[in-house]
C-alpha cells in the first residue's frame, strides 16, 4: 500500500510538472505570436505632423477573414458542435491609447469595452476576459510611433486610420500604448485535453504499476508463504523437523539458518526435559517397586526368618535410597524456585573434607580407593549444610565413578579466590562426558541402579554452588583424571561468579 501511494504521488507530481511545463511553453509561444502581431502593428503606427496614423486595415481584414473561415468550418460540423458554446465572436482585438489613456483607435469588436491598460513601459502580457466572455490574452507595448514626413500627395489615407492629437501634445514627443488581445479558448481547450489525457494515462499507468507490483510481490512472498507453512507445521511432537527453502532466496537464507538453529536448541531442551522426567520416574519408581515387592513377598511367605531379615535389610536400603533421591530433588526444586535461605559461617575446608571422606570410605574400601588430603587448611565463609552436601557429593561421585585402586587427590589453593580441587582417576571419560556431567540424571552408563547413584549428585553440586556463589568447573586433566574445581569466597570476600 505504501508502495502504491508513493508511486501514485510520484505520478501525480510528474503529471502536474509535465503539464505545467507544457502549459508555460505553449503560453510562451502564444505570447510570442502576440508580440509579433503587436510589433507588426507598431510598424504600421506612424506620426505625421499632429496626427497618428494607424494603418491596420490589412490586419483587421485578415482577422475578419480568418473568423469567417472558422465560422464556416464550425457550421459544417454543426450537429456535433451545436451546444459547445464556442466563440462566435472575434479572435483578435487591438486598442491604441495615448499615454494618458485617450483612445486613438480600437477594434470594432470591442464595442464600448476597453482593453485593460496597465501602467509601465515594458512589454506586458496579461490574461483578459474578452467582450464575448471568452478568455483571452493580451500584450501591451508602449512605444514612440515612427515619425513620417507628412506627404501632401498621398491620397489613399483612410479617415478611420487617422487621429488628431489633442492640443497639449502638439510639438511634443508622444508615446502610445498598443494593446493586442487574442482569444485563448483554443489554447485552454488544448491544455484541458492535455490534462485529461495525462490524467487518463496516469490512471492506466497506475493500474499497470499496481498490477506489476502485486504480481512481483506475490511471487516474492511465495517463498515466505512456503516458509510460514513449514514453521506452522512444527509442533512439540515434530520438533525434529527443520525448515528448508524450495528455491534459494537470499533474503530468507539467514532467517532459515537462525530458525533451524533455534529449533535445534528447542529440541534439545525438550529432549532434556523428557529425559529428566523419564529419569525422575525411574529414580523414584524403582526403589518403590523394590519396597512393594519385598513387602508383598514377605507378607505371603513369612516363615523363613533369614529370608525375611534379608528382605527387611533390602527394604531399609531401598527406602534410604528413595529418601536420598527425594531430598535431592526437593533441594534442587528449592534452588530452582529461589526459595532457599542461605546462612554464612566460617568453615574449615580440611575438616569438612575429612568428615565427608569418612562417610565415603564405606564405598571406597571395596574399590581400594584412597584419598590424598591437603596439608594446609583454608577457611571459607559459606552455608555449612549445603557446602557439606557439595563436598560429600563430590567425594561420593569420585568414589563411585573413579577407577579401582586409584587415589583421589584434594588440593587447597589461595589465588584470586580460595580454590578446592578434587580429582580422581577416570579412564574412559571423554570430553563429551565432561560437557554433560552436570546435567540432571546424567550418568556415563545409561542404567541407574547398577551403582546405586542417582545421577543427581553433580547437578545438585552445580545448583548449590550457584546458590552459594561458588564457581565450579569440571575438566579432564592429563593422565585422564577428572577434576572438579571450586572457587570459594574467603571471609567477607566477594564471591567469584563463574559458571562451568
Amino acid at each position: 500500500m505504501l508502495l502504491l501511494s508513493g508511486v501514485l504521488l510520484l505520478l501525480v507530481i510528474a503529471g502536474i510538472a509535465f503539464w505545467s511545463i507544457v502549459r508555460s511553453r505553449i503560453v510562451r509561444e502564444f505570447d510570442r505570436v502576440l508580440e509579433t502581431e503587436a510589433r507588426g502593428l507598431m510598424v504600421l503606427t506612424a506620426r505625421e505632423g499632429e496626427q497618428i496614423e494607424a494603418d491596420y486595415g490589412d490586419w483587421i481584414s485578415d482577422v475578419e477573414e480568418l473568423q469567417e473561415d472558422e465560422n464556416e468550418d464550425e457550421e459544417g460540423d454543426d450537429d456535433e458542435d451545436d451546444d459547445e458554446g464556442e466563440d462566435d465572436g472575434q479572435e483578435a482585438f487591438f486598442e491604441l491609447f495615448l499615454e494618458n489613456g485617450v483612445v486613438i483607435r480600437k477594434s470594432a469588436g470591442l464595442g464600448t469595452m476597453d482593453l485593460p491598460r496597465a501602467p509601465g513601459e515594458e512589454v506586458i502580457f496579461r490574461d483578459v476576459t474578452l467582450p464575448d466572455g471568452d478568455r483571452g490574452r493580451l500584450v501591451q507595448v508602449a512605444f514612440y510611433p515612427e515619425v513620417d514626413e507628412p506627404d501632401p500627395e498621398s491620397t489613399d489615407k483612410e479617415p478611420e486610420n487617422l487621429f488628431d492629437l489633442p492640443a497639449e501634445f502638439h510639438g511634443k514627443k508622444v508615446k502610445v500604448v498598443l494593446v493586442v488581445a487574442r482569444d485563448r479558448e483554443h489554447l485552454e481547450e488544448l491544455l484541458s485535453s492535455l490534462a485529461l489525457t495525462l490524467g487518463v494515462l496516469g490512471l492506466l499507468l497506475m493500474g499497470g504499476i499496481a498490477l506489476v507490483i502485486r504480481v512481483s510481490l506475490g511471487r516474492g512472498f511465495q517463498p515466505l508463504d512456503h516458509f510460514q507453512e513449514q514453521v506452522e507445521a512444527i509442533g512439540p511432537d515434530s520438533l525434529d523437523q527443520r525448515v528448508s527453502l524450495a528455491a534459494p532466496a537470499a533474503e530468507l537464507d539467514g532467517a532459515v539458518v537462525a530458525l533451524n538453529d533455534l529449533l535445534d536448541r528447542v529440541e534439545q531442551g525438550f529432549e532434556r526435559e523428557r529425559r529428566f522426567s523419564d529419569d525422575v520416574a525411574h529414580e523414584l519408581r524403582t526403589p518403590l517397586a523394590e519396597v512393594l515387592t519385598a513387602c508383598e513377598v514377605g507378607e505371603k511367605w513369612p516363615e523363613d526368618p533369614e529370608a525375611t531379615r534379608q528382605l527387611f535389610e533390602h527394604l531399609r536400603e531401598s527406602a534410604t535410597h528413595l529418601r536420598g533421591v527425594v531430598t535431592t530433588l526437593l533441594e534442587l526444586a528449592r534452588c530452582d524456585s529461589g526459595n532457599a535461605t542461605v546462612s554464612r559461617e566460617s568453615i574449615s575446608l580440611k575438616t569438612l573434607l575429612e568428615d565427608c571422606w569418612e562417610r565415603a570410605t564405606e564405598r571406597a574400601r571395596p574399590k581400594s580407593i584412597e584419598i590424598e588430603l591437603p596439608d594446609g587448611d583454608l577457611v571459607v565463609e559459606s552455608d555449612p549444610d549445603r557446602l557439606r552436601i557439595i563436598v560429600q557429593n563430590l567425594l561420593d561421585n569420585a568414589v563411585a565413578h573413579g577407577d579401582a585402586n586409584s587415589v583421589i587427590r584434594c588440593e587447597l589453593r589461595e589465588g584470586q579466590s580460595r580454590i578446592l580441587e578434587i580429582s580422581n582417576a577416570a579412564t574412559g571419560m571423554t570430553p563429551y562426558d565432561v560437557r554433560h556431567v552436570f546435567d540432571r540424571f546424567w550418568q556415563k552408563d545409561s542404567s541407574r541402579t547398577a551403582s546405586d547413584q542417582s545421577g543427581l549428585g553433580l547437578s545438585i553440586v552445580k545448583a548449590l554452588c550457584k546458590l552459594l556463589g561458588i564457581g565450579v568447573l569440571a575438566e579432564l586433566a592429563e593422565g585422564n583424571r577428572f577434576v572438579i574445581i571450586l572457587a570459594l569466597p574467603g571471609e567477607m570476600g566477594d564471591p567469584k561468579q563463574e559458571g562451568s
Partner: protein
Amino acid sequence: MKLLLIEDSHRLRHALGRGLRKMGYAIDMVGDGREGFDYGRFNEYDVIILDLMLPEMDGLTVLRKLRALGKDTHILILSAKDRIEDRVEGLELGADDYLVKPFSFDELCARIATLLRRRYQAKNPCLDLGPIMLDTAKRVATREGTTLELTPGEYSVLECLAMNRGRVISKERLQESIHDSDSYVNTNVVEVLVCNLRKKIGAKSGKKVVKTRRGYGYYIE
C-alpha cells in the same frame, strides 16, 4: 515352568526371585542386557520378564534382537516408563505385555500365568485331569474339592505335564523347566518328584494321571 528375569536392581531381583520360586516357578536372573540376551537366545523359557533401563544393552534392544532371531518366547516388559508412547513402542517391538513399576506382585503373577496359558493354548485356567483339577491361575491342584499339598517342585512337574497334555516330556526337559539353569541337579530329582506327586494324587489314581512312557519320559493324557 521356567522364567527369565532381566532386571538391574539386585534388590528387586532378590524379592521377585524369592516370590516367584515360592509360586513354583524356576527362574534365571541376570542384571544386564547383554547377559539377558545371551540367556534368552540360548535357553528355552516360558516367559521372559524384561526391564527396560539396563546396563550394557537396553531392554528394547534385547527385545528387538530376540525377535529378530525368531525367538517367540513370551516377553513381559516391566518398566518405570509409563508413557503411552513407551508402552506402544514396547508392544509394537514384539512384547506380549507391559507392566509399569511399581507393580503388584499378584498382578505380575496373574499376567505371567496368562502368558503361559497362551503358550500352551489353554485358555481355561482350570484343567480337568480326571481325578484331579488343576487351577493354573491359583496354582493349586484339587481332588474332589480338597486341595493337594504339593511342594513347588511337585506342582511345577504337574503343571508342565498338564500344559503339555498329550505330549511326552522327557526327564531332562522336565528338569530344565522346573529348575534354575545354574542349579546342579540330576534327573533323579525328577523321578522323586513324580513319585511323590503320584502319591499325593492318590495311590491308585496317581499312576493314571501321570503316566510313564518307558525310555521316553512322562505324560498326562
